[in-house]
């Protein structure tokens, strides 16, 4: 009896000491950097656990690849990448943002993945005047009706690829009637909304709009709702939902009868690698990246990424790679003086990357990126699925061909905007 008690007491003491040590260790990190040149601190709010862990992982991999290629140095100063996990929860993203800005005193922040997380941190970063790079978070309004000087969006806005794609589908594929199915939150609304707007402008009709909650475990009830008298289905489920949706779409026999098109994220490489190739084959989507982009700078990046991580780079990886490239260009421009916040922001706004892996990148007056949009079709070669580029749109901005003032006068794309005029 006495033996057991002592052992248990030792373990308890051990757990207590371990806990205390862990709390104490957190203070050690700043001491390690009392060297010659003070490091540039970049705060990276990652989502490497939780519902979007796969994509969040890609984000971090892309960013770290660029840093590794440059020896973690910018303008002669070492780069300290401080990674915090928000796990896809907006409240956590806000807490981590606070920590990175107030505790670690980072010079620049990178935004988390989800639109909800982006909105959660927006007010805080504006309040603290912290330059923040939005490489993936694509909530339209962050560079439109809720824009701010500290938001540097090098990634995209959700509706940016949808506008040209809507015109292309109406003009080239000549589809007339389309049903849409998307994840029931801001991102889904904006991707579908942008598509519907230009598609209907060109004479098309969206006759059905279905919304499924993010994280739907079973798409059968939604797939069976889809009208059979349409020319195509435009789909934008997000994350693991895309894999489940495409499987159900084929299982219910729709894949052979009704062509599947959608937002680029549906066939993003991070999900394509988890999909059955026959579920994905032939799907046409639009995005500003494809791992099969035949340009030299794209292929160089793809080869480097494959060599380091043994997987195809998704747009999550590319946007963070070119995002890191963007930050580097700005830092070089101001000779590494990132402490001058206003100067750093001006440099960030002025960067132009003509040779990023995805193609040329520059910012518009609202600090959102202007870039190419690629129409891609999934091709399966030797059991490996890839997004073959079949058309390129150049110089696409978040407003497409609409005058910004008129665009902003309308409400942001929502569940009921644009309204479904042709729905039965």
């Amino acid at each position: 009896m006495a033996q057991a008690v002592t052992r248990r007491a030792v373990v308890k003491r051990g757990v207590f000491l371990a806990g205390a040590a862990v709390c104490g260790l957190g203070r050690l990190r700043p001491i390690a950097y009392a060297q010659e040149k003070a490091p540039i601190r970049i705060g990276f709010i990652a989502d490497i656990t939780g519902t979007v862990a796969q994509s969040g992982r890609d984000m971090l991999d892309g960013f770290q690849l660029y840093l590794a290629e440059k020896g973690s140095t910018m303008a002669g100063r070492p780069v300290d990448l401080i990674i915090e996990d928000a796990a896809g929860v907006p409240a956590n993203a806000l807490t981590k943002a606070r920590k990175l800005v107030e505790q670690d005193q980072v010079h620049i922040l990178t935004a988390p993945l989800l639109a909800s997380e982006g909105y959660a941190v927006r007010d805080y970063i504006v309040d603290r005047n912290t330059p923040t790079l939005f490489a993936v978070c694509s909530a339209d309004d962050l560079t439109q009706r809720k824009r701010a000087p500290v938001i540097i969006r090098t990634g995209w806005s959700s509706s940016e690829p949808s506008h040209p794609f809507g015109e292309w589908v109406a003009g080239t594929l000549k589809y007339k009637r389309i049903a849409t199915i998307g994840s029931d939150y801001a991102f889904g609304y904006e991707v579908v909304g942008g598509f519907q707007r230009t598609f209907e402008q060109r004479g098309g009709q969206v006759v059905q709009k279905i919304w499924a909650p993010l994280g739907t475990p079973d798409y059968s009830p939604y797939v069976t709702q889809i009208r059979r008298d349409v020319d195509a289905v435009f789909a934008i489920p997000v994350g693991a939902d895309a894999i489940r949706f495409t499987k159900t779409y084929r299982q219910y026999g729709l894949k052979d009868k009704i062509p599947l098109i959608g937002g680029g994220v549906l066939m993003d490489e991070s999900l394509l690698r988890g999909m059955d190739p026959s579920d994905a084959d032939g799907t046409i989507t639009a995005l500003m990246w494809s791992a099969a982009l035949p340009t030299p700078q794209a292929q160089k990046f793809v080869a480097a990424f494959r060599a380091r991580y043994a997987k195809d780079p998704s747009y999550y990886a590319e946007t963070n790679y070119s995002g890191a490239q963007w930050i580097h260009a700005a830092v070089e421009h101001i000779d590494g003086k990132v402490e001058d916040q206003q100067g750093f922001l001006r440099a960030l706004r002025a960067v132009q990357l003509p040779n990023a892996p995805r193609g040329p990148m520059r910012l518009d007056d609202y600090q959102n990126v202007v870039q190419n949009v690629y129409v891609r079709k999934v091709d399966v070669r030797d059991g490996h699925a890839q997004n073959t580029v079949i058309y390129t749109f150049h110089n696409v901005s978040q407003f497409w061909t609409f005058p910004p003032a008129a665009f902003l006068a309308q409400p942001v794309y929502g569940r009921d905007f644009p309204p479904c005029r042709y729905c039965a």
Partner: protein
Amino acid sequence: MWRRANGSSGRWGSRAMGAAVLVALAALPLVSPTYYLHLLTLTFCYGILAMSLDVLVGYTGLSSLGHAAYFGVAGYMVGVLATRYALGFWPAFSLALLAAIIVAGVFGLLAIRATGPYFLIITLALGQIIWGLAYRWVSMTGGDNGLRGIPRPVVGFGLHLAQIQSFYYFALIVTALAAGVMAVLAVSPFGLTLRGIRESGSRMRALGYNVWLHKYLAFVIAGAFSGLGGVLYAYYNQFVSPADVSLVASANALLMVVLGGSGTLWGALIGAALLVFLQNLISGLTQRWLTILGAILVLSVMYAPQGIVGAARVLVARGTAGPASRAAPVPTAEPHA
């Protein structure tokens, strides 16, 4: 918590310790970087939630997996009233608390008929109703995007709470008051009846107590305090989202109570502090922080099932008791603070 021979216990001892902790917390902003003030404020918000859950779990013996619902109802109420209707602090606070009480009142009618695992399931389901509303009633709650832009309150006499230092003191005062009221409740005749019901509902019924009414009142009171935590949280975070009323949020609250020690109000506060600090400090050190958190929880369930406060009490009792008294302590009906 030093025992005296006549058993009149360490009420003064624990009061002195409580006072010392309060003084330490009050002095903290003078020396600490602001990040820890943020973490402590978060601890206070969740601490009130956890303490309110402890009233249900520890004192009445009803484990609920939907307690974050009232936290969220009050939080969203504050959010909507403060952003869309620009209501001041006192009206928004009162209406939010009222909303939490009403929801707890309605849900209590449905839940109290059940016991044990059935109570767990029905509270889970009721919590999910609130989550569903938060997620889908987009025009009111902002849906998945959440409600942002909640302004920090101005609490009478022109006291702005925009800076974390001032909000920290506000949160400390609110938490101390809430803890004080709940502690008084725990040692009141009502609290003692609850503990009797926790031990054996049928015996209390045989003694003539209205068990259903006591349980229902405990549920509503717990819901009210949970709402108080929600109000504090909404004003602190300036942002509310469906994640704050999700199953994970409710489970976290239960975890805080169990980790700290159920049946002891301070345990809930300590559990909240532990979870908040562990989650935020460990995640900065390693990407495997979830594993570490899980391991700590498993170890504490195995070796400290009474929670931290329970284990501390055992340690103290063993330390102060002489070598002669190795016998198990005689259980008393005396209330401990």
